[in-house]
């Protein structure tokens, strides 16, 4: 008998092929020309537009929408990509409901913002489909810069530096560039291998060499980079994962959510990816939501997302919470894990204690309950992994001031690994870009 959502244990092929294909297709289908025209017509071309202010990369949104309105779609794409070279990915993954679209004046007027994200995708897809790269490098400066980490921060920084005429080498410890675009973002937000296509498109600028499988701290040292290059940018993200601090975390069936998601993103055939019948996810952020939703989409029968505080404290936006609920994820709040319960070395259940908040501090109520589980995903936050000696670390991040300057001269940092910012793709892009501008100004001074 073939597997189904009812099959016990962690097994592949719970759903028919078509169901998996449908489940992992675009969360928001791309606009066709007509839809884009209708959506673009709604923009009021606001003065000093609130949407632009809300965009961490400061895209001139009213301008690119006006360009779409007039049929100058490539110009629209250039307006976007000139500010945000990963505008294609951001169009797919930005939580627009808490960024540009949240402050759209039509949200105030009608409770329905201009669909900025989808319009942005329309424009950037249009340009990228032609595989044209709209930017050309300035004359060579002879300067060489090392970028560590090929995530959004590193890529954005490298592109801007290459544009200015510098030679860039990106070192990344993974097998492929892209960072969490390639290994973390939910599959239904970046379909058809978009992350890899975008990196290939971005590298057309020239002047950027990517060296994968190169890890700083493991064969590569910051000191050596400082020696060999004129400047160094660190965009290493948050490669470490917080632990629950409970016995049994290494039990079979217990896994970091980010590892599950990375496997999922790299799976050649999603149907072959094994998933539990009763899945429990612990956490309240984007990673928890993505793990829970994708577990459901693979065919898990019961998926519970358990968060220790109230709903309003969840890092995932109400929009993301609703998305999870609509996919059948059971959201449990005000409960914290107390015990991982196994049988014969295999996970069978997780015990939780209800909590309350007293003066902002979490306290257990002494009341316990159990959720049956054959698979548990931990998603209680990522953290800085081992970092090279040198830059000062504060509150778990590389301390930066200004446009990503670390405490070490000649070393910049940006993205999730650096202080400030929102741990979003778009902030990583902005920080990479701004650091590049600062590096350029410093080197050319």
């Amino acid at each position, binding site marked *: 008998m073939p597997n189904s959502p009812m099959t016990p244990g962690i097994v592949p092929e719970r759903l028919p092929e078509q169901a998996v294909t449908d489940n992992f297709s675009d969360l928001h289908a791309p606009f066709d020309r007509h839809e884009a*025209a209708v959506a673009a017509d709604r923009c*009021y071309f606001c*003065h000093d537009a*609130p949407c632009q202010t809300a965009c961490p990369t400061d895209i001139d949104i009213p301008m690119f929408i006006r360009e779409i309105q007039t049929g100058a779609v490539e110009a629209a794409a250039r307006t976007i990509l000139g500010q945000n070279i990963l505008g294609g990915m951001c169009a797919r993954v930005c939580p627009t409901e808490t960024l540009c679209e949240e402050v759209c004046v039509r949200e105030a*007027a009608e409770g329905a913002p201009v669909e900025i994200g989808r319009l942005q995708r329309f424009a950037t897809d249009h340009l990228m489909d032609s595989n044209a790269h709209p930017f050309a490098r300035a004359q060579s400066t002879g300067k060489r810069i090392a970028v560590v980490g090929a995530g959004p921060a590193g890529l954005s920084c490298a592109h801007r530096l290459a544009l200015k005429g510098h030679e860039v080498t990106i070192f990344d410890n993974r097998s492929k560039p892209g960072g969490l675009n390639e290994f973390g973002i939910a599959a239904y937000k970046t379909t058809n291998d978009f992350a890899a296509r975008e990196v290939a498109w971005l590298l057309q600028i020239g002047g950027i060499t990517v060296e994968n499988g190169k890890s700083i701290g493991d064969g590569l040292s910051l000191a050596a980079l400082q020696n060999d290059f004129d400047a160094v940018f660190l965009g290493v993200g948050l490669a470490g994962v917080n632990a629950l601090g409970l016995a049994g975390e290494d039990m079979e069936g217990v896994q970091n959510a980010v590892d599950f998601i990375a496997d999922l993103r790299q799976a050649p055939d999603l149907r072959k990816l094994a998933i539990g019948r009763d899945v429990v996810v612990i956490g309240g952020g984007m990673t928890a939501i993505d793990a829970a939703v994708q577990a459901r989409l693979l065919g898990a029968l019961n998926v519970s997302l358990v968060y220790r505080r109230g709903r309003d404290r969840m890092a995932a936006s109400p929009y993301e919470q609703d998305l999870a609920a609509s996919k059948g994820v059971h959201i449990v709040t005000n409960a914290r894990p107390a015990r991982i319960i196994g049988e014969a070395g295999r996970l069978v259940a997780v015990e939780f204690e209800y909590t309350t908040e007293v003066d902002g501090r979490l306290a257990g109520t002494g009341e316990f309950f159990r959720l049956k589980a054959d698979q548990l995903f931990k998603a209680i936050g990522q953290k800085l992994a081992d970092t090279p000696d040198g830059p000062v670390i504060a509150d778990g991040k590389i301390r930066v001031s200004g446009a990503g300057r670390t405490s070490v001269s000649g070393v910049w940092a940006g993205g999730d690994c650096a202080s400030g910012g929102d741990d979003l793709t778009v902030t990583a892009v902005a920080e990479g870009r701004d650091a590049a501008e600062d590096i350029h100004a410093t080197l050319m001074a």
Partner: protein
Amino acid sequence: MADLSTDFVGIKSPNPFWLASAPPTDKEYNVRRAFEAGWGGVVWKTLGEDGPPVVNVNGPRYGAVYGADRRLLGLNNIELITDRPLEVNLREITTVKRDYPDRAMIVSLMVPCEEEAWKRILPRVEQTGADGIELNFGCPHGMAERGMGSAVGQVPEYIEMVTRWCKQTTRMPVIVKLTPNITDIRHPAEAALRGGADAVSLINTINSITSVDLDAMSPEPMIDGKGTHGGYCGPAVKPIALNMVAEIARNATTAKLPISAIGGVTTWRDAAEFMALGAGSVQVCTAVMTYGFRIVEEMISGLSDWMDDKGYAGVDQIIGRAVPNVTDWQFLNLNYITKAEIDQEACIKCGRCYAACEDTSHQAIAMSADRVFSVKDEECVACNLCVDVCPIEGCISMRELQPGEVDPRTGKTVEKDYANWTTHPNNPGNTCAAE
């Protein structure tokens, strides 16, 4: 419910909404369906002389101008008069009029500028039982090159002459349809009156090129790589038509000349506006070509509800009601002073008013760091631009300063008496002030 029935120069119809002479009225099938839908009358698509009919192009004959969401704002066409044989049209007119005796049936005509040609066709039209004729002196394309249409309408002497021929030949009321492609609409209207016209109708279409195909480098509509000027109509031309109607209605010579108004009528409100400026009936073309015959339901319900609201019992009570308030610039009250006022509750903070006033007007709107927009009374000249560009209806309004208040812009106290340019001290022609 208000009485919408209309008597226009003796032509009766259950409501003042007629279909203008155009494709919607080119054949029996259309006109029957229009009458079933509720239209009060039709002006049949222009008939030409007996003999081989004209031929139309076989490629596109329309060009379009769009607003947001591809809403059709303006349409242009290069269509000619009817391309169906005269006897077929006359036969159809006869049977439709027989089956719909309560509806207005007007026949539009355009034959060469020779007396015999008009004398030949008029008796045949009379035989159909039609209620009246409309002389098409308006078509700006195709027919004009053959000495008809606007080629006649642009020469007041011709208008007068042809109108007189018709009045001498037929007992049917004669409506003269005017072209807007002239400098002063009063001249052709006066000519029609001198020729004995019972009424004028206006406007016909405006000469235009709507767009250029930038790949083919040809005007559109494009026929085999070439285009030509066509007649423009639709909502975009309404302001031009309203003014021309008003000019005739307030001109002493033509003040009593009945007007059937045409040009961008799309809703009951447009119709009411034309009627207020003196129109006894209105004619519609582009709106039905865009939305179909059913819009007349909205026009009927809208007009009658509004009339009920206002206590107008019949259309006679609205026709021309706004004409006394159409005046010349020099008679406008310069002591009427207003200031823009922004309703902060309604404001959605788009900042359009700010951009408009700051960049192109009088720098009279202030913008705070948290996007609160407010009017600086000391700068506001009351131009109204902010009201016009604001996307929220009613958000910005113009407050009238009361006599005795000080206008912070000029520092002068608002006077209660009316005073216009003719007596203004800055007017060099104002001899009284100089004396």
